[in-house]
């Protein structure tokens, strides 16, 4: 005689296991939200950064770039670009696009004004100061 294997037991394992681990996830989420202020650089979340994030989103930057490693892998990582290139370079770069070099990957020109450029730079500065557990491995991202 083989050991018992019933559908009702399997069902209970499924529901019990799902609820159990979802509750664990909620508990860890709760602790994460509690710990984030020490890591997420929220003290520097200025009005300008908020506007910068909005520009980041409405220009769909994530469609080519990564930010902290998430996004598309077509263009360089920008989570640490502030540290890699500095503010002046970033602004000049955005304004100088597209390069028009034949065969090279092209970035559109978004016609950002001076304040918008400052906002996006501030957003990238804020992002670069989040504690990401030492990622990326080096400055190249």
């Amino acid at each position, binding site marked *: 005689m*083989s*050991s*018992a294997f019933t559908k009702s037991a399997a069902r209970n394992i499924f529901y*019990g296991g799902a609820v159990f681990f979802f509750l664990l996830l909620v508990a860890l989420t709760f*602790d994460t939200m509690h710990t984030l202020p020490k890591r997420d650089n929220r003290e520097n979340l200025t009005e300008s950064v908020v506007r910068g994030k909005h520009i980041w989103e409405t220009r769909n930057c994530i469609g080519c770039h990564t930010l902290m490693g998430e996004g598309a892998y077509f263009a360089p990582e920008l989570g640490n670009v502030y540290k890699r290139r500095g503010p002046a370079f970033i602004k000049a770069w955005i304004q100088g696009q597209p390069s028009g070099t034949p065969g090279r990957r092209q970035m559109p020109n978004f016609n950002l004004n001076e304040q918008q450029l400052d906002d996006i730079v501030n957003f990238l500065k804020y992002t670069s100061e989040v504690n990401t557990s030492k990622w990326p491995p080096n400055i190249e991202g």
Partner: protein
Amino acid sequence: MNVSMSLSLPHGNRRELPGDLAMWFFILAELLVFGIFFLAYAFARTRNVELFNASQLELDKLSGAINTVLLISSSYFVVRAVDKIRHGLARACAHWLLAAMALGGAFLVVKLVEFADKFEAGISLSTNTFFMFYLGLGFFHFMHVVLGMVILGAVALKAWKGGYSAADHVGVETGASYWHMVDLVWIVLFPLIYVLR
């Protein structure tokens, strides 16, 4: 040959697995998770022995030991409960299960006092790697005790209502197996985190 047989391969005179196979899949998954965490602790420690040894001194060994006694005893009560139902004594089975749950509850209280003490001292999951494991594994196991008590409670209720008999008590064995797993994990966890250094 059906699938449940192909996996448990019974041979004539061998006894069958106590409890439902589905529960054993769950138990194996849990043992795997705990096993990996234990080894992660042991090997993370090799890279930071001083920190682990120093932090370990802040633990309350006595409450860990009391909890070991509580869990082992409650496991024993569950053995008695299974023995009762084998003889068809459903009420006695439920009584032993309730006693086991009471000890489980005591375990939770001791654990909560221990954790409250640590929180008061400002210790959290992010304090250092040792406390990450101590609190993380402790809480993870804590949740297992709670789940185990829910399972035992359901089994006890059904036993009380006469849902099991000497001939058919797979459900009791299923719940018992889970509870013993919770005990087994603690038997390794206690020396690993509280004692060994």
